[in-house]
């Protein structure tokens, strides 16, 4: 188990390095030079010259990359071109909002997905099952920000039940919760369908497995069978999917945050892109990549803990 964990972490680290290098190197694709991009269109040529020297653009590329890595390791993700604040500070300020949004969205999608998936299993091959099948597929495909806009129109504008903008008052939990409802709904809805399908397929597959029959043949109680034997097997693919899905949830969050003018990583990065504020963009991308890799690696390790067959596969 330990060997597997080390290998898995090593792989993640390697990927992170590749991404960081790519991010840094992308700047050189631009006609013009990195200093202009870092400083933005308002910079004068003296500033650019000074920055070029400071950035070591006259040094060999490898040295530059090494310096960059050094900065990142010290937590310095660069400085915002416009506000001169450290990028990392800005990210950390808004990240919790996005994290909460993503987690709540995934949470409600998981609950609804499990409920609907189990319902489909209980009533399988009936009209209800078919209906749920079509609904799931439909819900998966609708863009989350379109759902967000429609939800906004219905619940915030026409019915005026929920706020249309923002994340609620700081320190005021009820208002924050109310502001979370529509965005979380929009971000999670696609996943309800997907998870329902997955749970249904998983559970059906496991329940027909021979080893469940064995357990019954030994007189185990049905609920022991479901929770100890069935769930442990069925849950494994679900975890993998959830981890990867968190990335897609974060992507949806970017758009939905924009729709609801909700402060978060999404609004931070889109504003930065509009203003060509590359340090903020790059810093955010690196941060989100690292975060996402962390989640996926943790999920993989959890799966390896739960399903011993996985550990052997990687060896081969």
């Amino acid at each position, binding site marked *: 188990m330990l060997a597997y964990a080390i290998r898995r972490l090593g792989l993640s680290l390697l990927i992170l390095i590749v991404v960081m290098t790519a991010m840094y190197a992308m700047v050189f694709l631009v006609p013009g030079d990195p200093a202009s991009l870092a400083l933005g269109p308002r910079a004068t040529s003296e500033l650019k010259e000074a920055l070029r020297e400071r950035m070591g653009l006259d040094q060999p590329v490898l040295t530059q990359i090494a310096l960059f890595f050094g900065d990142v390791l010290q937590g310095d993700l660069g400085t915002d071109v416009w506000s001169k604040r450290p990028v990392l500070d800005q990210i950390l300020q808004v990240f919790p909002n996005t994290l909460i949004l993503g987690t709540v969205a995934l949470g409600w999608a998981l609950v609804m997905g499990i409920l609907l998936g189990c319902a489909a299993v209980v009533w399988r091959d009936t009209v209800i099952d078919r209906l749920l099948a079509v609904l799931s597929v439909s819900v998966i495909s609708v863009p989350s920000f379109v759902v967000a806009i429609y939800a906004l*129109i219905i619940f915030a504008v026409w019915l005026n039940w929920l706020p249309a903008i923002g994340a609620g008052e700081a320190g005021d939990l009820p208002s924050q919760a109310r502001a979370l409802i529509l965005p979380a709904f929009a971000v999670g809805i696609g996943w309800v369908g997907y998870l329902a399908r997955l749970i249904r397929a998983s559970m059906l597959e496991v329940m027909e497995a021979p080893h469940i029959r064995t357990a019954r043949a030994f007189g185990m109680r049905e609920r022991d069978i479901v929770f100890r034997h069935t769930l442990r097997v069925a849950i494994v693919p679900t975890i993998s999917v959830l981890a990867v899905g968190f990335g897609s949830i974060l992507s949806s969050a970017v758009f939905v945050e924009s729709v609801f003018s909700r402060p978060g990583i999404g609004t931070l990065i889109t504003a930065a892109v509009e203003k060509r504020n590359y340090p903020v963009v790059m810093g955010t991308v690196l941060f989100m*990549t690292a975060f996402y890799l962390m989640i996926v690696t943790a999920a993989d390790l959890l799966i390896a803990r739960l399903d011993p067959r996985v550990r052997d596969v990687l060896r081969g």
Partner: protein
Amino acid sequence: MSFVADPAQPLRRGIGRALLRDPMGLAGLVLVATFLAMAVFAPWVAPYDPIALNVKEKFLTPSALHWAGTDHLGRDLLSRIIWGARLALGISMTSVGIAGALGLMLGLVAGYGPRWLDSLLVLVFDSMSSLPMIFFALAVITVLGPGTATLILVIVLVSFPSYARLIRTQTLTLAGADYILAEKAMGAGAGRIIFIHLLPNVVGPLVILICMDIPVVIMLEAGLSYLNLGVKPPSPSWGNILAEGYNSLRQAPHVVIVAGIPLVLATLGFTFLGEGLRDVLDPRGAGRRWG
């Protein structure tokens, strides 16, 4: 996903007929065909010029003259939507096509070529899929500036890793098949093996994946345009229409409502079609209705 193509079963002619028998696939086919028709025949089908300004007639609600109403600059929404279909499908199909070709090539090379090349390529694929794609897209857009060309490039870069991985897995599985070994024993060159034997058999699942990916790409394009980072206005991308409508939400909600409909229907249509195709082409693996 259990998509290993069975070399003994090449794509069957009866696909069309089988698809028609499945209500969801049929619905998808109809929707996709409608949008395709809209896209191709836009210049003839659209009642008005999509970018013609007529500010006096702004914010008209749907009526006989303007079936979908007008926007804040008096432009006919229906025409904008129809031309938007051309943009959406044009961009998504182009980028997915390029990404597919790229993924196909790289996947074949990774699966069939030397081990070191495979490891390297897999590292690249994994790296590219380890970013939630929106962030990568935004980084590229910052560097290159928003626009249609950038958009296509971004979509290609974001999509091809998953295609390449699928092709690679298929290739790896097939490359060990007995008939490939037999061909090698008879002295067939790599090129022949790749093009005549491997390619036709790995293409099937790729087609399905591409079809399932098109709605995602349409969403991405619309989303980026909505954020003013995609197709530049006044081009009638569905995302642009949505954004403009959002800005005038209180005054004229009909714009936003109307603009969302084609997006929903287009993504639904392609997804249903993709699901239908998958049930038809891979009945053993995903034959269960839910997959």
